[in-house]
């Protein structure tokens, strides 16, 4: 495949000296930060979050969850209603943006339209009264790293989307700030370029080692970029952990539904004694489950990857009739109905940004629908019953009322996943 022309040249200069941060990276700390807008809307509620020096943290959540507001508060573009913000050891809660020594990449790039690329890159340095020779050196260096040398005299209007994105990135890098703040910087690029820029960003962060807070609504972007990921919903921090642990040990139904693609399958189920059952299938609870011996209804969650075709390892099996088979080349998604009530809670809807009855037309029956990822090997046909084995160690249990996770917590979790 030909390399898209917009891909920056970071990879082509592996040995080159990259504009390395000259100052020690600083952490960012939010302590009980709350944002109440005029009119009483609480966009951010009591968020405490600590970003380690040099760490790449992704803030993720559905639209309107307050993630951009958090970022703007760190930048100083929004005042906090309560709580403190520290960058490094300094309390910056009441500092102006220009005194916080952070650089921000905006979704719209926000390049200064009447300035050439060179002047765009150098603007921050000029405002900070950096000497001209030093300014030119740093602009040239960053232009070299990002492959912008030949564009320096152009105005932003004469650049492609990918080039503008790189200029926006360069404008942040050239400042050598203590913290990078990025507000959905890739969302205006087309899908292919977005994926390659994602890798470039990761690489860039490794080289520069600057503390980065990255806002996105795309959980795949958050999982692939973030060393740790903070999941927000309605202004409340749900969980802040590494991508693997978010995936394996979601603290509640929302995080479980939000993280992972395709998303987790949910079904109303009942725990009795030492097994959980739904639609006539009875699955033994994993050893040591705190649910053992109880008798209650739960929401059962199963990842699409927890199934295998046929029967294996003595795992419990499900007889299903595939309704849709999506071929993806080396794997396939098999979608089928389960004869059990569908889970349609506020949490699962929020996770997919859907309104209450959005997909009611497509799912006329009130039955749970599962998506399962399988290898392409044994052929599967729509309408032909197949049996699927379900890994009993990869079950998630949630409280139907509160949505909180029941059962294995990170500490108790078995290592077999």
């Amino acid at each position, binding site marked *: 495949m030909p390399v898209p022309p917009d891909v920056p040249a970071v990879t082509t200069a592996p040995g080159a000296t990259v504009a390395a941060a000259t100052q020690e990276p600083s952490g960012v700390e939010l302590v009980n930060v709350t944002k109440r807008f005029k009119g009483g809307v609480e966009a951010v509620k009591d968020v405490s979050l600590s970003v380690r020096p040099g760490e790449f943290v992704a803030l993720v959540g559905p639209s309107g969850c307050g993630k951009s507001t958090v970022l*703007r508060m760190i*930048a*100083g*573009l929004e005042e906090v209603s309560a709580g403190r913000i520290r960058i490094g050891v300094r309390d910056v809660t009441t500092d*102006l*943006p*220009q005194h916080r020594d*952070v*650089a*921000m990449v*905006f*979704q*719209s790039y*926000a*390049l*200064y*339209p*009447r*300035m050439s690329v060179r002047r765009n890159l150098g*603007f*921050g340095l000029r*405002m*900070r009264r950096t000497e001209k020779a030093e300014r030119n050196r740093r602009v040239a260096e960053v232009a070299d790293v990002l492959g912008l040398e030949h564009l320096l005299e152009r105005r932003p209007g004469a650049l492609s989307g990918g080039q503008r994105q790189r200029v926006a990135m360069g*404008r942040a890098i050239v*400042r050598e700030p203590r913290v990078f*703040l990025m507000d959905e910087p890739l969302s205006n690029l087309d899908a292919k370029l977005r994926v390659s820029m994602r890798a470039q960003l990761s690489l860039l962060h490794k080289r520069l080692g600057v503390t980065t807070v990255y806002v996105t609504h795309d959980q795949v972007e958050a999982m692939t970029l973030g060393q740790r990921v903070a999941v927000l919903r309605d202004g409340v921090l749900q969980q802040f952990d590494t991508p693997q642990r978010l995936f394996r040990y979601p603290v509640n139904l929302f995080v479980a539904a939000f993280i992972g693609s395709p998303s987790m399958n949910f079904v109303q189920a009942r725990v009795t004694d030492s097994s959980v059952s739904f639609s006539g299938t009875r699955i033994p609870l994993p050893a040591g489950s705190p649910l053992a011996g109880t008798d209650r209804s739960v929401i059962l969650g199963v990842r699409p990857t927890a199934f295998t075709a046929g029967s294996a390892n003595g795992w419990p099996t499900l007889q299903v009739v595939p309704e849709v088979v999506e071929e993806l080349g080396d794997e396939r998604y098999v979608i089928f109905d389960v004869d059990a009530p569908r889970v349609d809670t506020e949490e699962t809807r929020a996770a997919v940004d859907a309104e209450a009855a959005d997909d009611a037309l497509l799912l006329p029956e009130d039955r749970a629908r599962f998506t399962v990822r399988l290898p392409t090997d044994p052929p599967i046909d729509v309408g032909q019953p197949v049996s699927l084995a379900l890994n009993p160690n990869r079950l998630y249990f949630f409280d139907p009322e509160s949505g909180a996770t029941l059962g294995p917590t990170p500490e108790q979790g078995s290592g077999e996943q």
Partner: protein
Amino acid sequence: MTTTATPPPPAPVAVPAAGPDAAHLPVRIRSRWAGYTTTARYITLFALVCMFLLPVYVLLITAFKDLAQVSPSRMWEWPDSLSLDTYRTVWPKLQDGFRNSLAMAIPAALISSFLGAANGFVLSKWRFPGADIVFPLILFGMFIPYQAILIPMRQAMSDLHLLGGLNGLILAHVIYGLPITTLIFRSYFTSISDELIDAAQVDGAGMIRTFLFVALPIAVPAFAVSVIWQFTSAWNDFLFGLVLTNPDHWPVTVALNNVAGGQVVPYHEAMAAALLASIPTLLVYILMGRFFMRGLMAGALKG
């Protein structure tokens, strides 16, 4: 038209002969009546243009006539000779007023545009508590007629020791222009993305440098609109010029009035003087007009 329900005859369709040129003819979708309507439209437009240009025609030809030729009965007639004598006689009478007007209208237009830009920026991009009250109050200034404030204005200028010279007149026009220039710039800046201002702040610019380095350079179209507007209104003003200045500093409008005044109106001189006096505003429109249109459209079309 008469499209009958009978099936169309198969062969005789009026296709132009498929010569080598025919293949390159653009295919146009147009009404059957297109030929007539276009002609009718152009005739109407031409008639209207003639009507609107009649005064200009009279002005032009009268300015080239000599006194003997000027009479209402021969108003439409072409001059006997194209003589520039009238311009020569009238220019000395206008000269001082012309200079005064330039010295007054240029600074007045620039200063009130700049201050309007600052107002518009603060009111749209650097909001302060009470901005929603201040803006309508500023706009209110647009609806105050000159005549209502003429006497207090003269008194105020007198107290400020600005009466008689051009500075007082400039100040009056700057203040009187602020509502409209503020409105122009506020509308313009509202259409500009907030992220741009945010970016400048994060980059280390405070309010003043954000305004000077980021907002003002983008506002060129609004600036053109504002300067044209202000220059024209300051140049064309008669009342303030007459009341606030002494005869040494009378603007061109007052000088123009003096040419046309007196017992017998020398129409040819009045016309020539009017033509001369209108040249600067015409020039401003011609030089900045392309920004003017763009500036007026900018808010509506988003970039």
